[in-house]
């Protein structure tokens, strides 16, 4: 995965990001291929969210370049990247149905029927106001919106952190079921054991540097450990 490839979905070269004097990311080089579910793993403050925000054009890099399907973050990449931030980004004063029409209007790849079916599975009424929903339910709505797009790249920042274990299973099943083989999923989380079974590859990020890019199978074969156990060993305090 670390080798540059012409078929890469994402190509990151010499990427650095500084917040004042704090170096959040330092000279990151990374290739993300198509058709993979990749775990972006690291401790708090390791730079995961910064990397994700840079890929979504929410931050401007201090140095380096990100190309998604050959384009720098912008209108073209936003049309093919489906992003779930780690926070609730939905305005409170609208109904779920309004949100559906919002996504339908702005994302050509949004499948409204799929979203309605997922809402129904999780017993969320489309006419409910977002402010009347619990934090966990709002997170489910966000994830439904994001996963109802037929995007080339799904970037999910802590998608299961705020939901109950039952919903977690449903979400993971949804992720596996709904992404197509041409698309990739970059998934950042602390709950490694919960997602380990669905991951193809992992990226370990520590203090703004990539310390490991490997397939899950390689980690199991080489170290005889699960990704979760290996992560705990590498990042032990």
């Amino acid at each position: 995965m670390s080798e540059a490839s012409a078929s890469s979905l994402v190509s990151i070269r010499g990427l650095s990001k500084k917040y004042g004097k704090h170096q959040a990311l330092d000279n990151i080089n990374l290739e993300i291929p198509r058709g993979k579910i990749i775990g972006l793993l690291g401790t708090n403050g390791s730079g995961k969210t910064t990397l994700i925000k840079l890929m979504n054009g929410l931050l401007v890099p201090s140095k380096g370049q990100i190309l998604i399907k050959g384009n720098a973050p912008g209108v073209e990449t936003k049309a093919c990247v489906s992003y779930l931030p780690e926070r609730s980004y939905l305005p409170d004063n609208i109904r779920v149905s309004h949100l559906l029409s919002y996504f339908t209007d702005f994302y050509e790849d949004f499948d409204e029927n799929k979203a309605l079916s997922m809402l129904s599975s999780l017993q969320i009424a489309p006419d409910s106001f977002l402010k009347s929903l619990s934090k966990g339910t709002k997170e489910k709505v966000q994830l439904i919106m994001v996963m109802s797009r037929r995007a080339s790249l799904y970037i999910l920042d802590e998608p299961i952190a705020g939901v109950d274990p039952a919903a977690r299973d449903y979400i993971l099943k949804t992720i596996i079921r709904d992404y197509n083989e041409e698309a990739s999923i970059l998934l950042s989380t602390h709950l490694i054991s919960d997602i380990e079974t669905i991951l193809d590859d992992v990226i370990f990020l520590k203090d703004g540097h990539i310390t490991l890019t490997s397939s899950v199978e390689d980690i199991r074969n080489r170290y005889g450990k699960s990704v979760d156990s290996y992560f705990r060993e590498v990042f032990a305090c």
Partner: protein
Amino acid sequence: MLKKLIRHELAETWKIPVLIFAVGTILSLTCALYFYLQPQPDPSIEVNLGSMTIYILYAFGIAAISLLIIIYLGVRFYKNMYTDEGYLMHTLPVRPWMHIAAKTITGSILSYLGSILTLFTLYPITFIALPKIAYMDPAEIEELLQILPAIFGESTAVIIFYLIPYMLVSSISSVLVLYAAICLGQLFGKHKGFSSIVCYLGLNALISSLSALFMLPGLAGVTIVSAEQSANSATADEFLSLVLPSMLHTTFFMSFLANIVLAAAAFFLCNYLMKKCLNLD
């Protein structure tokens, strides 16, 4: 995409301004009715303090509409673009200028409606209220109605005809300056909301100072030319009737052009900052 952005922006923004307009309209109708029903004061009474207080409070209230709309638009822009909601807005597949254009069009419409409401309520109510605040004989009331045309050298209808596009341009530039100040505030590392307010006050102070600087030589020139033209005028009144309208015409047109330039500059500044300096917390 721009159409869709405007449609959604309008749908999410109209409620609070319309509520403010409704309160303003009810307040104006109540005041108009109150002053209409008030008897004219006795010539021996210099000023009816009660009516005067009510009129002043009303004038402040109606003037606050524009201020409330600007505050609402500023909070909405900041919340929508630079807090958690910004994660949704900035990941939509639209260019930054479209966000700015959609929010400017929506904000300007609302701000413009506020100005129109203020103009078309405060002006007539002032004419209903003044004869009820202090005694005026019919000739004085007639004179009162001629004050504006005398000052501007145009009929009231012509003044309103010029004011309507002027207020539109002024609404657009004030909304864009507000948005530019909020975008500038995001360049600060901490306290971005507070920094935006400081930038807004700073930008307005700068604009006022520059206006005064540019207007002064022009106005002085107009005064000198008009004074020369009216050197042979018989009375001070004739002198003023020539100088004042010229000065106001010049101020009006310079201010109109300055607002267009200001709006364009603020738009490009917003676009540049959103495109090149976005750093969402």
